[in-house]
């Protein structure tokens, strides 16, 4: 495959890519810290993954193999659209197999297949600020990060337990990175949070509309906030995948009729396929 004529490799011009890579280096040097960057207008709308696309465009090379998932699946419309975009403007090889990819761009999931050294996981991030529901003013949240003033987030968890008996955050569950910065893991289910901890792959986060990048370098400590007597316990549907029978993977609920009928399927379509192939 080759890149489309009329565009630079991977759409962005080289100066922009260099600017983004400099911001990424800073982000890697300060794990969990949000680095402002000159986010560009992209040919996809804000909210569709413009941040992730810019990160991918800046780190991808002609020898890379790209996988794009949305909700864990390669065949969701937005994943298809972004994969087609890179196939068109970068001409790189694409894959649906987690193990074969060198770069995986994701919205809302971390693959079930453990990632390895040398792989890069690029997250699409709608709201990089973990404190935004508690304090909407960015000038103030920046100060809170600078002072590691995170008592307010703990208060929110306290309030959840007081009201509901347990912490009521099920996705975008806040984490402390390297014991210093509070970070939004992007709206992945809390089920995926433990995979971030000491992950061998590099994790990069791009928020296009909010113009922020951040990163978790390989093997970095990522801890989900909790209380000693109310430890972090992510929810998962108590069911098995109707296709591969998995009881460990994260499941999507599919409504089959309007009389309460439903079934559950692996959200990670590649992992489900692997399991079915192995079962032969």
């Amino acid at each position: 495959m080759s890149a489309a004529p009329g565009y630079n490799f991977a759409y962005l011009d080289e100066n922009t890519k260099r600017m983004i890579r400099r911001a990424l280096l800073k982000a890697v040097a300060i794990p969990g810290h949000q680095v402002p960057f000159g986010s560009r207008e992209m040919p996809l709308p804000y909210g569709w993954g413009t941040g992730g696309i810019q990160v991918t465009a800046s780190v991808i090379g002609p020898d890379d193999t790209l996988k794009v998932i949305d909700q864990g699946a390669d065949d969701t419309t937005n994943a298809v659209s972004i994969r087609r975009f890179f196939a068109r403007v970068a001409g790189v090889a694409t894959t649906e197999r987690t193990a074969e990819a060198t770069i995986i761009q994701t919205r809302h999931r971390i693959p079930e297949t453990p990632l390895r050294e040398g792989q890069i996981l690029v997250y699409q991030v709608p709201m990089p600020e973990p404190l935004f529901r508690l304090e909407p003013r960015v000038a103030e949240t920046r100060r809170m990060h600078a002072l590691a003033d995170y008592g307010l987030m703990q208060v929110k968890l306290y309030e959840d337990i007081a009201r509901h008996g347990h912490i009521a955050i099920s996705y975008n569950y806040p984490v402390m990175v390297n014991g210093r910065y509070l970070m939004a893991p992007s709206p992945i289910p809390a089920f995926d949070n433990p995979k971030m901890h000491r992950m061998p792959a590099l994790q990069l986060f791009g928020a296009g509309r909010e113009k922020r990048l951040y990163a978790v370098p390989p093997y970095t400590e990522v801890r989900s906030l909790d209380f000693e007597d109310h430890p972090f316990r992510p929810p998962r549907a108590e069911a098995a995948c109707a296709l591969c029978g998995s009881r460990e993977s994260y499941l999507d609920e599919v409504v089959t009729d309007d009389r309460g009928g439903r079934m559950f399927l692996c959200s990670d379509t590649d992992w489900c396929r692997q399991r079915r192939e192995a079962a032969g």
Partner: protein
Amino acid sequence: MAYVAVKGGERAIAGAHAWLDELRRGDPAVPELSVAQIEQQLSLAVDRVMAEGSCHDRGLAALAVKQARGDLIEAAFLLRAYRTTLPRFGASTPLDTGAMRPIRRISATYKDLPGGQVLGPTFDYTHRLLDFALAAEGAAPPPPAPRAPAEEAPMPRVTAILAQEGLMARETPSEAEPPDLTREPLAFPADRPLRLQALARGDEGFLLALGYSTQRGWGNAHPFVGELRMGEVAVEFAPPELGFPVEIGDIAVTECQMVNQFAGSRTEPPQFTRGYGLVFGHCERKAMAMALVDRALRAAELGEEAAAPAQDQEFVLYHCDNVEATGFVEHLKLPHYVDFQSELEKLRAMRRTAEAAREAAE
């Protein structure tokens, strides 16, 4: 003097109208745009004017767009000014959007559901690259797009699916005829039918910004698009002389049901709550923004802290009407000679006093 000024004003207005007509037509060498062309080819502009003009008539909305030179707020204003002259026969029976034949129906909460996901005609997954081929006119019309076979399977609303499991807070049905904002002024506190009515004809840009603000922390929103559906739906009306409803036609609407996270407390079980948007025509951005703002405005009723602009019903409802807003902003162009003269005199007097005080101090 005064007499001459009035005469000059009349001449000036006549001249301005003539000039406006000329600019509307543009270069006579370019063919004139027909109302039918606008209705067919600028259909989303027409839909927006129908929604904000609160009058479901594509032909009139297209005419308004033409007359307003594409200024959509001006066009909505024209349509409203026409609408207000129409006799009011009464209220239709509630639309059954569940019986809609959707050309688009998507849910962000379930990967698949009865009736399926119908992507329909959407910009969503287009790459925003200018298509220069469109600049060359006279191309043959594109072949008909493949359509999913008309599903005979029912398409239950996602909110109904959640309600079956008791996960969705039920709305209280009401037989009462909803208030008519075009006949009665807003009154506060405004109940939900009145709020929804104001939002349905509210300015798309204003609602978009407010809805967006709730997503960025200005209001406690945790929204999911439970369902977005777009299509034609039958309107039924029960004339008093008949006493039973008869179908009087179909209208195109866009409906958005936003599912929002937990309300509830220790004593009430957590439930999903609904934000609702319904707009004439194909206006999905507006329907979604409306649903976000509707949910934000329910903060007080649901016992949530209401501190953000989108949660303040007076702020939202008094400022969402773009015909009112544009009138008051633009009226600043009108003469204010008399008021300004008294301001001038006041300012001069204050400066004289301050000057005198300073001199006395020195």
